[in-house]
């Protein structure tokens, strides 16, 4: 293992740790709200990773303002585009999850998914 690489790319390492935190929250938390928060942490970590990969040290955002048209002056714009698309997707799935949570809460007055399941099994429907 070469730990020097880990230190050089500490930002990517942080993104992966955040992804792990979000993933395990989405998977393991019982509370639906905490699950949704986990989902958002997971998605945001991916965007952080993408943005880091598009960034090139010492260059600017790819918007031509002072007439410089050389490619060398700007960072890679594609990851930013991907991040934007990803944000749209994650906003819509978050909205869907929240609306499902509201539905479940109005019916069962709890946010605990496992409790809802056991109650459904008891009802036997």
């Amino acid at each position: 293992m070469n730990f020097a690489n880990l230190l050089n790319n500490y930002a990517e390492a942080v993104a992966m740790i955040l992804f792990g935190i979000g993933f395990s929250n989405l998977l393991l938390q019982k509370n639906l709200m905490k699950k949704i928060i986990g989902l958002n942490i997971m998605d945001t970590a991916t965007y952080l990773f993408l943005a880091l990969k598009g960034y090139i040290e010492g260059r600017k955002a790819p918007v031509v303002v002072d007439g410089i048209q050389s490619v060398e002056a700007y960072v890679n714009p594609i990851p930013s585009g991907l991040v934007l698309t990803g944000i749209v997707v994650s906003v819509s799935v978050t909205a869907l999850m929240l609306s499902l949570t509201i539905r479940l809460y109005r019916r069962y007055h709890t946010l605990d998914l496992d409790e809802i399941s056991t109650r459904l099994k008891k009802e036997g429907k």
Partner: protein
Amino acid sequence: MDFIQNFPFMSIILSLFSGPLSSILNGKWAKRVNMAVITVIGLMSGSVLAYVLGTGQGFVYRMGHFSAPWGNEIRVGVLEAFMALFFCVIMLLCMLGGVAEREKEIEVSKQNLYYIMVNLLLCSLLALIYTNDLFTAYVFVEINTISACGLIMIKQNGRTIEAATRYMIMSLLGSGLLLLGICFLYDLTGHLLMSNIKEQVQMLAATGQYHIPLVVSLGLMSVGLAIKSALYPFHAWLPDAYGYSTLSSAAILSSLVSKGYIFLLVKIFYRVIGFNVICESKVIHVLFVFGILGMIMGSVSAIQERDIRRMIAYSSVAQIGYIYMGFGLGTEIGVVASIYHILSHAATKSLLFVAASGITDASGGSRQFRDLTGAGFRNKLAGIAFTVGSLSMVGMPMFSGFISKLLFGQAAMGHTHKMLPTLIALAVSTVLNAIYFMKTVIRLYAPGSGEEAMVEGRVIHIKEQPAKSVALVFFILLNLILGLNSEPVIRLIESGLQMFD
């Protein structure tokens, strides 16, 4: 450029726009639009298939005429066109078979919303089949997930909402992993178009550079799509989602939605990474092991189930296991067998769902096994259809399931390490399949049971449902065609896979 080359793009955009159109129509017209759109897209896919077979090579459709590597592309070969045609046929039959259930179970004011979801689902499936861009594939995977969630929860009771929530949670875990895998791959290669990525990946594999990130990215994408298509340890959401949603939703979810993800995985294997790199990586061993576990455990859960719909749902877990086992063999013929099993499972599972609803209708709406006794006499067509589906799932010659089992067996023959486990798993799984399917069939035709259904002392009358009967007859025919006339289909799949390169 021939005009017919526009058809794949036009079919995607047609289904995409018919979604919003359905929102301003009432339920009846939305249904007609939906049926018409599926039929038109089916015809278009058929003509594309004929065109591609005629020219003998695939074509690339550049969106907005930007060439690679800048533009977005649609790529059509034999397999893609055939899959699109097949998915349209299955979807049309599923929608036809579930008409009565939809009218009964969905509120009148919300009927048109259902068709929005179906149109969007068709759009995303077509895009997953045709696209040549990995990030576009990710976006349509999410659209697929959202519309599938809508299909589950449209029948509003506690069960379906809970099932939809569980489905969303598992699916989002899967798509998170898929997105991360795509980001890794983009980072390694600098491309998003499948063909460009493949060049770079082949170069990396040849020089041995970035070996670990490549395997990690492949693993993330495979596991992500495996979670979304309910491979064995990730199947917890499946029985509820298939068991309690309305009939056409259950049929479409089991036969199309999970297959769309699997087809994307095939494309990733062949068009993004390259099959030689896949075979050298250890990822396929993992898929193989979980596929075999799924084959056994899915059947064991199905045997324990007392509810016919949930039993069929658990059987899906076993069949998905077959497909991943075929990938795990790491040979060309294994993948051919898996793709054939995608077709055969799609045709059989939707048949079983529709037939099971006919049977439960004839038993006073009860899905419990004890109430189903003699239902095959009361609803004759549904009984025959369920028997055909069961025999096909068990692997009786004449039906489609036999051919896919035969292909899996042939693929396993002569494999150095995986021959014995595959053959044993096939044998055990067939016996387990036979236990729960034949148990049901025997109960349906239990001798001496009454001609009329008696529920709590009342005689119930079975309403004639012509749409469902038509769908059942066509499903049976499709099964027989796939079972008796498999040679051309297999040749089609083989030539399609060759065209992938």
